């Protein structure tokens, strides 16, 4: 439930956020708005949730909003967000928008998709 609330306002301010923070991108750590759409509690869903929450905790501590949506529970959101495949992680911020499709098993690709670099 909380996830839904955090998701919507973040989307509205997306364009504003881009212009105001573009300059500061190099210094200030980027803020992340993520939405993970899963279908029920099957293996792929749980895998994806585990990987994403793990990455967020590790790399984006304090600067991310993650919403997890079960499309079975909220089918209208699947339509509105153009979800076809599950699981799908939508990276709403930072722009550009990205959709990560799959159970997030390919960690390298997930890292690239989220613009994360391993900490040195």
């Amino acid at each position, binding site marked *: 439930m909380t996830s839904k609330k955090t998701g919507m306002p973040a989307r509205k301010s997306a364009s504003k956020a881009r212009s105001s923070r573009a300059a500061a991108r190099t210094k200030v750590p980027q803020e992340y708005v993520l939405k993970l759409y899963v279908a029920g509690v099957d293996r792929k869903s749980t895998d994806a949730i585990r990987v994403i929450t793990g990455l967020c905790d590790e790399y984006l501590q304090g600067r991310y909003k993650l919403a997890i949506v079960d499309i079975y529970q909220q089918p209208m959101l699947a339509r509105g967000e153009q979800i076809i495949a*599950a699981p799908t992680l939508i990276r709403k911020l930072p722009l550009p928008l990205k959709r990560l499709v799959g159970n*997030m098993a390919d960690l390298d690709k997930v890292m690239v998709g989220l613009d994360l670099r391993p900490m040195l």
Partner: protein
Amino acid sequence: MPRAQSPRVKLQGIRKCPTGIRGLDEITEGGLPRGRATLVCGGAGCGKTLLAMEFIARGILDLGEPGVFVSFEEPIGDLTANVMSLGIDLRDLSRRGLLAMDEVQIERSEIQATGEYDLEGLFVRLGGAIDEVKAKRVVLDTIDSLFDGLPNEAILRAELRRMFRWLKAKGVTTIVTAEQGERSLTRHGLEEYVSDCVIQLDHRVRNQIATRRLRVIKYRGSKHRTNEYPTMINNKGLSVLPISSLGLSYPVSKARISTGIRRLDAMLGGRGYYRGSSILVSGSAGTGKTSFAAAFADSVCRGGQKCLYLSFEESPEQLLRNMASIGFDLKRWTTRGLLQFRSQRVTMYGLENHLANLHLWVEEFSPSTVVMDPVTSLVGEGLSDEVEAMLTRTIDYLKGRGITAFFTTLPKGGVQHEGSEVSISSLIDTWLHLRTFESGGERTRGLVVIKSRGMAHSNQVREFLLTDTGVKLRDPYVGSGQVLMGSAREVQEAEDQDRAREAKQAFERRQHDLEGERQKLEAQIKAMRLELKNLTEEIKAASGTERLRTTRRSQERRQLQISRKAD
């Protein structure tokens, strides 16, 4: 044993789901397989989306079956606007809860594959839409986009297979559209999954004229027609034109319609053409085919019947003017609504459009007679097969409705021969051939009835004139074993008269001579008779004297004897 047989008895063949698209249900013998998926494939712009959309819209409007349309390519707004021109208001249908539309957008550049996935997102959306309107029909248009957008084809294929199974389980009748592949039916081999029924659409261009075709490639569990059928898209949507929808079992009429030319009626057993028959008037340029057509149209309208006149060469105004000049006032019929002209250039559409237009007009106007002048304009180079097929269908269609069909044809290259350019002659009931005769420095028009089924007809070659008061047939000239026309005929007739007069005079003269002879002879006979009479009398007189003399001599001898006292 009987138990093993029972399931077989229960099978009743597959149930059909009518599409509501003109002609398609006839070809598929009732519609698409109900509760299964049908693949509609074809290249760009061949009408896949329209077919699918009509399936949904007709289902809702005509058959009371709600539908779901999932568009992978076109935005819903565009689709709505597109079909609005066909008189289908999708927004209204959605408002009434009979139609659910979903637009699936896939942006390849946004997507990053990270492992295994499934299509639950699509399933959820589709399922939601189906439940929302209690849909019986589903369209997925065009599913190829999924292949362009989603990674890992193996997963996608497995998921699609699962989706079709799922749709089948839901009991909805589905149309899936797909792009044509280069060597296969579809670019991504979808026929592998959707294999119950496959329909191929085609849009080809020959001689710069585009023709649409439709073919049912496969239909599991049902018989269907396998030919390619011309298809057209007009303001009423898509229609498929099955060639032999009627066969040869149409009712026939014994009623007759005048040809509009009095003496031509006489040539055709005295009463003209049969109602509902097909009439062909062939002849090279300028032989008066259109005049015959106009005469017939005039006659039909005079009888209070409606006539549809399709002209491929002249505009209605031009026709009206030209026909007025030979005494056919067709304008009064057009104003009374009995006569309708439709002029269109042949090159304007493909053949199937012409045919479909004909269907449309016939349905709108319901005429008793259709005139097509001339059908040979439809023949492009090397297309005569198609024209023949088209005319066969036209005649079939018109005959099936009891409509009299009147065609004119023009032999190619102006060659005068009795074969008609389009070999539809065997379909024709009454065939008149017009030709010109050139002799003595002039051209005259002649007419012959080549055939006329079911009536005694004249075998004479007749000359006819286009006069101020219509088409006039002249008496046949039947002298000296040849046909003469025009002034040659006049000359011949004058000559004949002279000759007759001369012969008469000669006869009279001879009679006179003979009479003289006879009289002479008679006079001779008279004279000879007189002579004979004289002779006879002379003979008589002579014999009298002789007897007298003999008697006298015997008397004298007796007296002598007496005097000599002899004994």
